[in-house]
């Protein structure tokens, strides 16, 4: 799905001067953002900073913005809630909107990648939160997206499930190599997954830097702690130099 089907698709993402206002309140103010093909970018910001809005504009869900947007032809979105249709079986949800034959086969293959082949014929209402979110991930994967948009996809999961889901996403990204834009308010999550972190504040890109750590990453290396301190500072959270954090996030 591109912003306009008549225009040639853009590899990766190119955002130029995007402005979005709701009832006169400017949420995004001439934002520029680039994502290279295959790059994993985390968009971080306090709540209300417009990070989800930017994702929705890139994904073509929010069409009320001004500016220029270039996106690839195939974009898939995973939302904070799984947003599966409760009246369709899991596999029918996965192939929603797809044409062509062997739909079930394709659905089962995608479900296999998230470890849920056995639930192909279940009703979404019978899934746990983590399972439902993995189905939503399979629904995105089956479209072989060139750009994967993740709108706080782990925020509603419990801490253990979240860790597993993060690892799953990292593995799938490494295998399929779509460009990824991950919106999150979780500093650790951004540092664990992203090649580059973009910090959004007051409607503009406040800061951005490459994470530059080898994968798989560990929260225990000094650079991780250093980057986290810097990010939390950018988010307006004061952390002492020797504070030891044990929780999952940074809300």
């Amino acid at each position, binding site marked *: *799905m*591109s*912003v*306009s089907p008549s*225009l*040639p698709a*853009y590899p990766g993402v*190119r955002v*130029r001067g*995007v402005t979005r206002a709701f009832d006169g309140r400017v949420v995004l103010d001439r934002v520029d953002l680039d994502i290279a093909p295959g790059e994993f970018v985390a968009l971080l910001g306090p709540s209300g900073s417009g990070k989800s809005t930017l994702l929705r*504009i890139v*994904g*073509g*869900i929010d*069409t*009320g*913005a*001004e*500016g*220029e*947007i*270039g996106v690839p032809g195939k*974009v*898939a*979105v995973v*939302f904070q*809630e799984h*947003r599966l*249709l*409760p*009246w*369709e079986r899991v596999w029918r949800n996965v192939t*929603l*909107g*797809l044409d062509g034959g062997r739909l079930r086969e394709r659905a089962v293959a995608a479900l296999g990648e998230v470890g849920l082949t056995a639930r192909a014929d279940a*009703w*979404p*209402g*019978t899934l746990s939160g983590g399972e439902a979110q993995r189905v939503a991930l399979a*629904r995105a994967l089956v*479209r072989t997206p060139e750009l994967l948009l993740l709108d706080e996809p782990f925020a509603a999961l419990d801490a253990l499930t979240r860790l597993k889901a993060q690892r799953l996403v990292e593995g799938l990204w490494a295998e399929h190599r779509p460009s990824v834009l991950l919106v999150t308010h979780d500093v650790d999550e951004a540092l664990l997954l992203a090649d580059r972190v973009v910090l959004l504040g007051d409607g503009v890109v406040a800061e951005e830097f490459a994470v530059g750590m080898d994968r798989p990453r560990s929260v225990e290396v000094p650079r991780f702690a250093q980057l986290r301190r810097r990010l939390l500072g950018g988010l307006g959270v004061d952390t002492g130099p020797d504070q030891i954090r044990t929780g999952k996030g940074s809300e």
Partner: protein
Amino acid sequence: MPAVLSPAPTRPPVSVVPVRTLALRRTRLLLPGVRQLRRVSGLAAAVLLWWLGAVQGWLGSTTPSPAAVWRAGVELVGSGEYGHHLLVSLERVGRGLLIGIPLGVALGLAAGLTRAVEDVIDAPVQAFRMLPHLALAPVFIIWFGIGETSKTMLILIGPVFPLYINVLHGIRGVDNRLVEAARSCGLGRWGLTRRVILPGALPQILVGLRQALGVGWLTLVVAEQTATTSGIGYLMTDAREFLRTDVMFVVLVTYAVLGVLSDLLVRLMERRALAWRRGFAGV
């Protein structure tokens, strides 16, 4: 090549209402048939009370006992009278519902799916709905004559409104986040309607169907009370002339059974169509 975005016209906010209620279902192990038995027991008690009241004279001398009603029923069925009148009545209701239900659904869909249509037709439909449609009976007889047309028209009109309202309300109640997600999966207008909006509205549409069937039977009673020589309503008016309360009760029981049967039909449809739902089933 970057595409250029232009601001879209602002749309009024769509109300987001959860489409289903989640609740704990406490499954207790019941002996097979216990629930059916419980369902029948209430009805059996009512008939028993009726029979006792009639035999003891508590209900007055003009109330026939279930046994007398049964005998009258058997006699009517045996003479072929009952079958003839019932068939005529079923045909009337069938004809009315066959037009009225699709009409109500069509109006509700048109208004629910297209805001412009809602703006135009909602006010007149609501105004018309407030009019008790049974009050139209004399007018319809003048307009359409004393034949079948006036009866069909009357039965046709009643079910339109409950369906219109429930279809429209059902569509407005579909979770907009699901619509958004489905759209991001590449579903077009038709796909959205077929796979998201209609299934999401279906529980409410079936509620409308239930009400519509009820209204259909109600209208039949009124439509058959004047200017007719056939139908179970006529059977009732005719019995009144001869003070045959047992025959009148046969008709009353028939109305009740027909109502229960049509409700059962919708409930079966619900069970098939809403298998995905896990609502509160009671304790």
